[in-house]
């Protein structure tokens, strides 16, 4: 029998015992719906996680430190490189070199220092860090009250929420995070605070310290000369800064304990020549005018390129750090989660499988005579088998389509409900429910195949039916 005829006959037969076949089909669709719901939840959560994590900059950033910096992330494999004493320092030339590596978007110095900020005549000590203008796309500033820096040199600051709370004199227990960031931001936005910092000033003209403090040391006049070249003085300065934003999230979660709570525009921070911890460490070394950076952040085009970029920088003789390994295990976690959710979803489909077998076996009993007639007028075993397969397959496709729609609807409802909840908690809405097209196709195909498998036994049984026996019934 040809396929269109087969389909037509199958659909006609399904319509004949409408109630039973509808119930079976609903059984299939519930199975498919639960499968789709489970899988789309898994996929959605994975997408949400990676979207969040990608935007946080965690996975496309490599932090480069000098091997001279013995306190930093010294991993085993890095101990094989050049000895710290012989390795290069992170200066502007290195930064440009790294920036020109393939797949590198930008490389900017990490300027971070601990200093005092005065607000309302009260001193507050905290870590300050500089942000490049590209940080604007960071997730942390997405729905931030206020705005990002108006320019890369503007005397403006963005505060982290906890620091803003400190300025307002609110003290919250650690881990308690229920204050609305907008409420905290409201009294602070547009206000000024004063930053006190130590500026490093190069002393190019005959440093008085060199000539006046060591008149008796004539043996080391050559040494004095080189020391004088690298000498600088440290001056205390003050700068008024306008608060433009209060970030709820932590844009520097990767930094762990050294993360900053106050952020400055990068170019402004560079122009301040703030005394850096590395300056002290490099004091004994002859240096040029070029500043030496404690670390450089390198942003890579996409997380896939982190590894080659890291390798290239390591070859240059620096230490690197990225959270790529962490990201890998997160991906793996979601794969496992998907499999488990899929298994639970498939359980419902297994129940539907039994439903199909039951319905079709019942149909054989009921249509015994009809099968006998068809055989008597020339239907082959294959025709009868195909007819039952077509009925199972049609129920499968129908159930699959309805199930996908149902699963999608369930997802939408849960999404909606959760977003209403998130809104009531003043969180931004989220899409943690994703039904990609491949899942739609896969679910319908899977339902079809499961139904065909369920039709295997009934179809075989119908095909083997003895027409003489079948026709004997009156």
């Amino acid at each position, binding site marked *: *029998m*040809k396929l*269109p*005829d087969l389909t037509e*006959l199958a659909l*006609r*037969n399904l319509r*004949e015992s409408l109630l039973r076949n509808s119930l079976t089909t609903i059984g299939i669709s519930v199975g498919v719906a639960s499968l789709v719901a489970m899988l789309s939840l898994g996929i959605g959560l994975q997408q949400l996680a990676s979207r969040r994590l990608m935007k946080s900059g965690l996975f496309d950033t490599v932090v480069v430190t000098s091997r001279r910096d013995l306190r930093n992330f010294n991993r085993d494999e890095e101990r094989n490189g050049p000895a710290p004493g012989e390795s290069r320092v992170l200066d502007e030339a290195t930064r440009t070199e790294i920036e020109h590596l393939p797949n590198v978007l930008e490389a900017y110095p990490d300027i971070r220092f601990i200093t005092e900020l005065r607000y309302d005549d009260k001193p507050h000590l905290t870590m300050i860090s500089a942000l490049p203008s590209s940080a604007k796309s960071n997730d942390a500033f997405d729905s931030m009250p206020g705005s990002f820096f108006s320019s890369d040199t503007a005397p403006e600051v963005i505060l982290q929420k906890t620091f803003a709370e400190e300025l307002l004199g609110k003290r919250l227990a650690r881990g308690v995070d229920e204050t609305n960031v907008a409420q905290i931001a409201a009294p602070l936005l547009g206000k000024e605070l004063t930053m006190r910092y130590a500026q490093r000033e190069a002393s190019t003209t005959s440093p008085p310290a060199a000539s006046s403090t060591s008149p008796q040391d004539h043996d080391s006049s050559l040494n004095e000369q080189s020391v004088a070249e690298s000498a600088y003085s440290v001056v205390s300065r003050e700068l008024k800064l306008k608060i433009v934003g209060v970030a709820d999230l932590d844009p520097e979660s990767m930094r762990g304990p050294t993360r900053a709570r106050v952020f400055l525009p990068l170019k402004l921070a560079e122009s301040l020549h703030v005394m850096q911890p590395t300056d002290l460490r490099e004091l004994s070394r002859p240096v040029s005018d070029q500043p030496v950076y404690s670390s450089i952040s390198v942003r890579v085009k996409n997380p896939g390129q982190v590894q080659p970029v890291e390798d290239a920088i390591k070859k240059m003789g620096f230490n690197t750090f990225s959270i790529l390994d962490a990201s890998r295990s997160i991906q793996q976690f979601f794969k496992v989660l998907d499999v488990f959710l899929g298994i639970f979803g498939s359980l419902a489909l297994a129940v539907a499988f039994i439903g199909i077998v039951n319905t079709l076996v019942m149909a054989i009993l009921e249509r015994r*005579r*009809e099968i*006998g*007639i*068809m*055989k*008597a*007028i*020339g*239907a*082959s*075993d*294959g*025709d009868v088998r195909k007819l039952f397969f077509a009925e199972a397959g049609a129920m499968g496709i129908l159930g699959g389509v309805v199930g996908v729609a149902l699963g999608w609807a369930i997802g939408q409802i849960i999404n909606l409900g959760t977003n209403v909840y998130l809104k009531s908690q003043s969180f931004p809405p989220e899409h943690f429910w994703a039904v990609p097209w491949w899942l739609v196709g896969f679910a319908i195909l899977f339902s079809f195949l499961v139904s065909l498998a369920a039709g295997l036994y009934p179809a075989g049984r119908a095909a083997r039916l003895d*027409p*003489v026996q079948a*026709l004997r019934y*009156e």
Partner: protein
Amino acid sequence: MSVSNGAEPNVAPAIRVEELCRHYRMGEALIRAVDGVSLTVPAGEFVALLGSSGSGKSSVLNLLAGLDRPTSGSVIVQEKNLAQLSREELARYRLHTVGMVFQSFNLIPNMTLAENVELPMRFAEVDRAKRDSMAREALARVGLQSRVNHRPSELSGGEQQRAALARALINRPQLLLADEPTGNLDSRTGTEIMNMVREFNQQLGMTVVMVTHERALAERYAQRLIFLADGKLVGDEVNSPVAAGSVAEGERS
């Protein structure tokens, strides 16, 4: 049409049955439904198989139809030994060589008459358009042109049997097998059906084997009467059927 032409050697036999046996096992007992039947039916002959219930006449018909397989012996129809055909080949044989009508009509209740009649053509994979026109034509030939879209339950017994005849003949078989075709009909409608069967037999040269327990009916239409009892052939008579048109009333028992 003469009775004797069935015995003439120049006409190729349509059916040749040799030492045909069909035994069933029912628990401990062996039932010999058909037990060593041999007969030859020339092409174009109208044969009646007579016997009381349990005589094995329906079993012989099922073996001729390829619905059942013999325990031993052979059934040769159109030079093909049905005992040696595969299930697939038997289905093709039923589809193209044989047309069947039953006492209980056996139309598929959820299909219209047109759909019932075109069903064998679906199995034969005939094109839809051709199928449709042929089904209508066949129904018109049995006088049901106005009922093509009715379901069997909306029809009288006689009309259902006419539709069943149209279905049996749709693939132009050479052999028509009828199992008590008038058993569920009153005598007038029965006569109507029998006249149609005779017409197909005479006009299309179709071989007809009809199972019946009504001797009077058989005598009126068949050219040859074969009697079965306990699965054995007990009589084979040449008969002169009543001429078409002159039909008496009240033969039903």
